[in-house]
């Protein structure tokens, strides 16, 4: 227990100075601190841990020795703090005595005169001026510019804004808002259901665009029975538009008896593709069967990386179809070793990023194989530059339900278009009118509420 209090020290019987067990005197710093602390060290402080002190006191020691032990302990701690302080300040001097803890405190000197001449390790009677320093003055004011202060304040406000709970935004649930919402819904429902209930055929046919004609010509230029890679890359949420647009293209390809190889970079894509073929089989009277007329290779994982991998090594990346068959050795595909061996690539997507990935990762590997993109109207502006540029990076572009559904005259596309087109036309017009009326009303209200300057 005593070792905890004052390790390896004992008191000299002659002058009460502190020695360690190796006969060496405690360092001068400790003595300096002793002087400093002696004035501060009140009896109350000495009794910080009376039990430990009592354990530390040998029976034959006097009360003065006890006090001195405690003070020496304090001075040791002070010395350590000073050593740490110096090391923090980067004070490194070879001539300066090294301050270390506990038993490593080795600072000896030989007494030059007096009764202890020649004795090493005697504590000096007076303070060593070497260890007296001017107190280091540290500024407590942060040296920053005004701009830095402003930025710090802004950052502080931002952090506070993040951690403070935000009050829940209470939306107004006024009756007028509900009536307005229901009213708009009724208008749209009526505009959709009216053509359906009257069963009036589409009176206005969408214009046939130059893009659709080009895509049609491209498909027509490919010989019957060609092998086509078809990627169904759209989510079920937008399948209404995409099915209608893609159906006309696939329908034309089925008429020419193309062998379809289906893939998808969307997990739900393989099922979407199967569903579309079932619909076209029913609507167009085709007998497209798996393995006989088409192969569904399934889902390509990995996004753009997976797509690039598939473009470089399709046989290795997608070795089996959805049924687990090794289809690459079947007669229709045995001559296909890379994507450039396909006669045509068709990509159907509602997502511009997926369309771009096909152009960026796959198109450069296609060689002379043409590629057609069938896209949603919302994705068309993003992919049109690939088609309209010179030289063009894609050879065909079919966009949206309106343009795509009518560019070919076949049974299947007629089924899609007759179901939707009249209702869609009327709903778009009514919706646009409602938006226009709303914009006019809100503009009038904002003009009325604006204060005159």
């Amino acid at each position, binding site marked *: 227990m005593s070792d905890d209090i004052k390790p390896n020290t004992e008191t000299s019987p002659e002058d009460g100075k502190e020695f360690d067990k190796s006969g060496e005197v405690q360092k001068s710093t400790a003595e300096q601190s002793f002087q400093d602390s002696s004035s501060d060290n009140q009896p109350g402080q000495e009794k910080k841990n009376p039990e430990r002190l009592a354990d530390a006191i040998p029976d034959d020691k006097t009360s003065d020795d006890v006090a001195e032990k405690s003070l020496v302990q304090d001075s040791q701690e002070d010395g350590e703090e000073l050593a740490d302080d110096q090391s923090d300040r980067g004070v490194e001097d070879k001539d300066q005595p090294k301050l270390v803890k506990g038993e490593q405190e080795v600072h000896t000197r030989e007494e030059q005169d007096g009764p202890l001449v020649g004795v090493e390790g005697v504590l000096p009677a007076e303070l060593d001026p070497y260890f007296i320093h001017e107190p280091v003055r540290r500024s407590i004011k942060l040296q920053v510019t005004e701009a830095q202060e402003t930025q710090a304040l802004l950052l502080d406000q931002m952090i506070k804004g993040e951690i403070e709970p935000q009050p829940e935004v209470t939306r107004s*649930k006024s009756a007028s808002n*509900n009536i307005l*919402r*229901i009213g708009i*819904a009724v208008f*749209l*429902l009526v505009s*959709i*259901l009216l053509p*359906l*209930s009257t069963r009036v055929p589409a009176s206005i046919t969408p214009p046939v665009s130059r893009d659709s004609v080009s895509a049609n010509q491209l498909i027509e230029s490919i010989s019957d029975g060609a092998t086509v890679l078809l990627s169904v890359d759209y989510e079920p*949420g*937008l399948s*209404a*538009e995409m099915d*209608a647009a893609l159906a006309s293209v696939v329908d034309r390809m089925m008429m020419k008896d193309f062998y379809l190889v289906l893939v998808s970079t969307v*997990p*739900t894509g*393989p*099922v979407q593709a199967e569903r579309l073929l079932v619909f076209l089989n029913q609507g167009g009277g085709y007998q497209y069967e798996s393995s006989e007329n088409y192969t569904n290779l*399934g*889902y390509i*994982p990995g*996004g*753009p*990386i997976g797509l*690039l991998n598939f473009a470089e090594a399709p046989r290795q990346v997608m*070795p*089996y179809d*959805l049924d*687990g068959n090794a289809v690459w050795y079947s007669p229709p595909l045995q001559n296909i070793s890379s994507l450039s061996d396909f006669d045509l690539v068709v990509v159907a997507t*509602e997502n511009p990023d997926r369309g*771009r*990935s096909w*152009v*960026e*990762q796959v*198109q*450069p590997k296609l060689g002379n194989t043409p590629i057609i993109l069938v896209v*949603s*109207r*919302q*994705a*068309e*502006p993003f992919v049109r*530059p690939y088609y309209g*540029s*010179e*030289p063009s*990076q894609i050879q065909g572009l079919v966009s*949206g*339900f*309106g343009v795509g559904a009518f560019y070919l005259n076949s049974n299947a596309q007629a089924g899609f278009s007759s*179901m*939707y087109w009249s*209702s*869609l036309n009327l*709903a*778009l017009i009514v*919706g646009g009118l409602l938006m226009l009326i709303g914009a006019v009303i809100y503009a009038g209200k904002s003009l009325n509420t604006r204060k005159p300057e």
Partner: protein
Amino acid sequence: MSVFDLNNLDLLGTVLSFGLTLIVFSFIFGDNLLFRFAIHVFVGVAAGYAAVMTWYNVLLPEIAVPIIGGSQAERFFALLALVLSTLLFMKAFPRLSGWGSPVVAYLVGVGAATVIGGAVLGTLFPQVLASINLFDFPSSFGNSSPVWVQISNAVVILVGTISALIFFHFGARNRHDRHPERAAWISAVAWLGQIFIAITFGVLFAGVYIASMTAFVERMTFSANFILLFFQL
């Protein structure tokens, strides 16, 4: 044909589809319990389907089959993929998430290289070349348009591209006793670019509007046909 001509599975699917469609449309009357239930069903079904598809289309043919019956090289690569996948799975556990960091780093590095390389070589350079070619009048637009149309198109695209790019230039010079401001000519060109950007957003909104309305019409058509078939109308 009526709905009762369908087989049991098709009939169940059609009825479920009709019911869920109506439940989603109930949002017209505000957020409600049924709508939330339908949303949760959609999320759950999508997640479950994705998991099944991943197992049958990725894990089974890419990992399990090569390990069981593949050649030595196939086994090695499949095992390597399995180990890396397992390490990536550690990301789900906070105490072990550090094990997955190298795999994530690898994925991010490869992904960034692939995407950036594709964007530069597949989009940026070809589109810059295409913009330059717009002023190569004898070959642009297949010579089918009059020259003044070709010139107009080229100028509009050039001005639109440059002004839209300059709109995103926010550099400004510091002036004495005044707030930093963009140069006057940059502000003018940026204003022009703002118009092009606004038109672009308008076109994008129109596309989204048409796509959404098409989905709405398709669902309403399906519901109307279901009712007509159900009541033999």
